[in-house]
């Protein structure tokens, strides 16, 4: 029965490359999520809009 510790020469490099690819994919997915969703902003809590009038138009 072959043991994974007895992998042929070069197997370590492939594993390393595969893990690196997975890490990059996860990072890309995470960055894309942040870019698309972003974080929430805070809308105005008080005040409001009013038409320009009186002193505004002098």
């Amino acid at each position, binding site marked *: 029965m072959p043991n994974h510790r007895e992998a042929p020469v070069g197997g370590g490099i492939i594993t390393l490359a595969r893990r690196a690819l997975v890490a990059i994919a996860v990072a890309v997915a995470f960055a894309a999520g942040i870019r698309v969703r972003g974080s929430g902003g*805070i809308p105005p809590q008080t005040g409001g*809009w009013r038409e320009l009038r009186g002193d505004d138009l002098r």
Partner: protein
Amino acid sequence: MARILLFGAGASGARIARQLRSSGVVNELEIRDPNAPRLGELVAALGDGAESGVGRRVTGAPDVVVVASPAGTQVALARRAVHQGIPVVTTSNQTSEVRRLLTLDEEARYRSVPVVVGAGFMPGLTCLLARHGAREFDEIDEIHVAKAGTGGPACARQHHRALSSTGIDWRDGRWTRRAGGSGRELAWFPDPVGGRDCYRAALPDALLLVPHFERVQRVTARQAATRNDRFTAPLPMLRRPHAEGGIGAIRVELRGRVGLERRVSVYGATERPAVATGAMAATAVLHVLAGDLEPGAAGLAGTEDTVSMLRTLATRGVKPVRFEGVSTFV
């Protein structure tokens, strides 16, 4: 009474034509557009005083030339008018085109004619509100403008292109190139538009604002976009744009100093962008006819008498608003 030559019979051009005809100041209006059926419909709807024309040459000795053709086609028309010493009102919102329109300044001054660059919703009304709001400051440090919504199909295409193109900001006294679609910021527009996520885009507003605000440190422009807009921005438009977008809005935020106090003022307006562009461009035409604008090529931020122009704009149906009260985004 005046004679006006209008290039463009699209969503904005049609609104400009209606505004001019209803102003009581324009008795002759010649409209040119390569889309003959659309042009015919508009001229028929306007009735007496409106006529259709052909070609891209400035003929018929108009008092003002109004250019509301799609972005990218306005410079040649404006240049021809300036060569003949005729005032021009343009509506472009394309950065490269606005830059080229501003280069007409020297010839416009030489011929003593005003060339209004970007007389639309944004740029246009945003420039006017920035200039108007700046009156109550001793010094303006920052100007941030934003818009939501699009007018006709040409405006929608320009909006789509802008989101994937490089924007230009004024930061700490120098021009800075910014990636389109970056710089997300929640901007709170007047009702009923409300809060929208806005992003950097290829918008010409900083080019039109900076020359008129000495010592301003930051000028930025953003446009509202959805997630779909951002994902599809680098691609061609996947479907034909709407004949006209819905309700839109603009927002102008001024930051500066009054005495020793730091202050923030926020102005805005809400309207269908093509309707607002029609009102703003028609207002600019009426003030050009009245001789209120100085010779040279500039945006509406160069307007001295903003009150008079805002009053005219109100009679055309667009009434800007101002945010009052303490807000957490100030």
